[in-house]
């Protein structure tokens, strides 16, 4: 297409195209492609989503269906680090609410919001498979187990 400003960078396009070579069906790359975009931008904007869909030859709605199904694909801007507190049953019984409250109070946000300094976003997540160490938090790709008020404070550098 001519005249349309490129939304994706050539690096992103290259990486996505490389992924596509592994599958018979381009649409199979949907999640990988979204992760690639997110790797560079922290989140996936509408423009990026449309551009990726075009690259994969599927409709934006189809890709949006995938993007919104996975809770590690962010469709809104997020802070430099995203804190996912588990709120599934074990964690919920052992204090997930308390963890959430402390996180939110410190950062002055509601779940789903970004802290004013753009540093953190707090989001709930489903069972992280570490129920024996509930409550559990996932931050920067790392699991924090047996989380207490102190762990939260330490995590946020308070």
């Amino acid at each position, binding site marked *: 297409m001519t005249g349309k400003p490129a939304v994706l960078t050539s690096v992103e396009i290259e990486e996505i195209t490389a992924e596509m070579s592994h599958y018979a069906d381009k649409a199979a790359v949907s999640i990988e492609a979204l992760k690639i975009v997110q790797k560079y931008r922290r989140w996936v904007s509408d423009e990026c989503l449309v551009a990726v869909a075009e690259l994969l030859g599927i409709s934006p709605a189809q890709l*949006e269906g995938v993007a919104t199904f996975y809770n590690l694909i962010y469709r809104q801007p997020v802070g430099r680090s995203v804190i996912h507190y588990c709120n599934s049953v074990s964690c919920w019984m052992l204090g997930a609410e308390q963890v959430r409250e402390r996180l939110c109070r410190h950062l002055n946000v509601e779940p789903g919001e970004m802290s004013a300094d753009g540093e953190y976003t707090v989001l709930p997540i489903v069972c992280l498979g570490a129920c024996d160490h509930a409550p559990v938090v996932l931050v920067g790709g790392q699991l924090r187990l047996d989380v207490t008020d102190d762990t939260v404070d330490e995590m946020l550098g308070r």
Partner: protein
Amino acid sequence: MATIEIDGVQYQVEAGESLLPVCLALGFDLTYFCWHPALGSVGACRQCAVIHYHDPEDQKGRLVMACMTPVADGMRLSIEAEQAREFRRDNIELLMINHPHDCPVCEEGGECHLQDMTLMSGHTTRRYRGRKRTHKNQYLGPFINHEMNRCIACYRCVRFYGDYAGGKDLQVFGMHNNVYFGRFEDGVLENEFSGNLVEVCPTGVFTDRTFSAHYARKWDLQTAPSVCAHCGLGCNTAPGERYGELRRVINRYNGEVNGYFLCDRGRFGYGFVNSPDRILKPRMHDRMDITPEAAQQQLCDWLADRAIGIGSPRASLEANFALRSRVGEENFFLGLGDNEQSLLEAIVEILRHGGIRSPSLREVEQADAVLILGEDVTHSAPRLALSLRQSVRNAAFERARSLNIAPWLDKPVREQQIDHRSPLFIASVCATRLDDAAADTYRGSPEDIARLGFAIAHDLDPGAPEPAGLNDDARALAVAIADCLRQARRPLVVAGTASASHAVIEAAYNVAKALPAKDRQLTFTVPECNSLGLAMMGGRRLRQAFEAVRDAGRVIILENDLYRRAPAWEVDAFLQAAGRVAVIDCLSSKTAEKAALLLPAATFAETDGTLVNNEGRAQRYFQVYPAPEPVRGSWQWLSAGMDNLSFDALTAACAEAFPALTAITQAAPGAGFTVDGMKIPRQPRRYSGRTAMEAHINISEPQRPVDPETPFTFSMEGAAADVPAALEPIIWAPGWNSNQAVNKFQDGIGGHLRGGDYGIRLIEASGALDWFNAIPDAFKPVKSQWRIILLPHIFGSEELSLRSPPLAERSPSPLAMLNPSDASALAVQAGDSVEISCFSGGPIVVLPVSIEPSLPAGLLGITAGRQETQRFRQSEPATLKKALGEVPS
């Protein structure tokens, strides 16, 4: 066969079927949401739970989802067991946690599957007191409303829209208890079958926006069995009226034709009936109103005075026949375009004497290899495209069978579809809306498409003539297609009038004839609701009328705008030469404007008639409500004075006059038909306000209008039970207020209607024709010259539906399509305009250009059927010039 026991009673049923439809077919009221007869089982909603006992001793049993459970011999089940009832009651309560309970303001109310199931399951008191999640609704275009809060997440919408109809722009977003069914952003739903969402969604999320504009509850609508007037397929419809206004059209189940689904043209194209352009009074010279008696007298006088009659493919057999009887066979002209008449005559000849079966839409769905020659079916015969899309699934069903997967298990069968698709080949002038389902496509001029067809036929049977000088690519494709068709057990060839090419139709016959399979089939699309019926009746050509006019005193034109049939200057000359022209029609038109005598004709909703669809099936449409005085059926205007024939007598006379039409009297029962001595009511028993509806005129309830012509009454009184399923005006059963009540009227769920589907086939395969030999030369572009290809559009080309505002809103502006190389040679870009001058003369037409890479160079694609494009004839050569004036931005 299997014997199963349900709540202590034994039943003989088909083994291996899904238990849910089996229970429904046995008459049980078992609740369900996610299952749909056309979509199969996914087990998503958990609403169809029953108890399955392990063995004769088992007292407790376990819950199973009926829709996911195959019937096996000796099964012991309970629908009534308290645990099962409790589960269903609780399940629906959970599904409804977020439901707004806004039935009084919901347009689904009164025909809502959710209401029916809620009551049926016994969940009658809402206990949830928490907050409900709410959603923002989207604008989805002029056809469909969106009210997401009512969603119970059954997933039927996306399964129909995406999986069944191939739509890409409706999806489900989010997860667990927060899911949203909608588009990526606000905007028109793109799929041509979107209207079915209104009936597929069991709640009020998707409702008919055109109906909202003049809404009435289902029980307040007057209805009669009808047939769609907007293309040649003859889908069955149930139009609903209130206060003398047609309020909506919904699907009427026909197991052989449209099944559960209509296209959006058929569903939303009804607005022309209520249009301000309706002709409502007899007039002279387009200005002077006259009394109906004077008009009738005038017409009778003219008919007796060397009149010639012009028939119409959108008028009933009866109306055409009445005209033909009055003016005499030698003075009756069909009112078709010249080429169109030749094509239709060729089609009738092939269907009647070609020895190849013309399939119903149900049979189309069963084809295991398909070749389409020369059409974009979605635009020329929309509902057929939906059936063809299903045919592609047959290889997956076959594969599933070999893996012991039941055909009704939707997800695993769809998995098979990734690698197993029955071949669909599309040869067309440019990209089509069905290409995504095709195994391969071919683009070429109609001649080249025909040549491909002839080559396929020759490859299948060397006795068939071979096109000379076919290029290697086309030859290789022909061989590949022939290979697939040869292996098929139920191969199908599709062609039709949209290509406007004789050669294409003849090539299609050669291919079908060359097919080795016993169950080979051949179907032709035809443009209008009675094109085939008119052609079967037969008559002289419009061109001949143009010549004959000199000796005639009068011209009577039946429901026809001749400017759509022949070049304007010829029609002008004809109408001028005729001097005295009478037009009987429902809508104003250029032809009607020129009438010296104009008679207001009833539409399909206001009178009766028989139509013959492309399959050769005669179907009756019944008057839904009385036409406003003095509007009457064309057949009534024309038969007055003919010893005042009744409608049935007219049908019978028509059947007698044409051996090919003998069976039309059996298309539906006549006026004498009663059930237990009573006529069939058009109004539901709950019809409200009857005593008050006209109180502003007269407070005494007026006498009900009498209908002497049909088995129906304009009343709520009459036969209540035992009405033949195909004649039921309103599909309703106790406890089943939604359209899903149709379960109660079928022979096996999703099968034929009990007592037989609607209509009667007039043509069965017999005889054989010789190979067609007239193979055209390949198309060679001539420098600076373009060949006009008229391209029909689902929302842009059909005369009547285009007069319905919501549909007109969806119609594209007429365009001139060019191959990119041609566009650059002309130095035009998309958005520029071109001046088109036809070799045949006439005024220059200026149209905006769109660039279509799939269109071969040398062809000029033009939107068919629009006023701006009426002057173009198919295949006519034209020259192009960039239109100056507007500077391209």
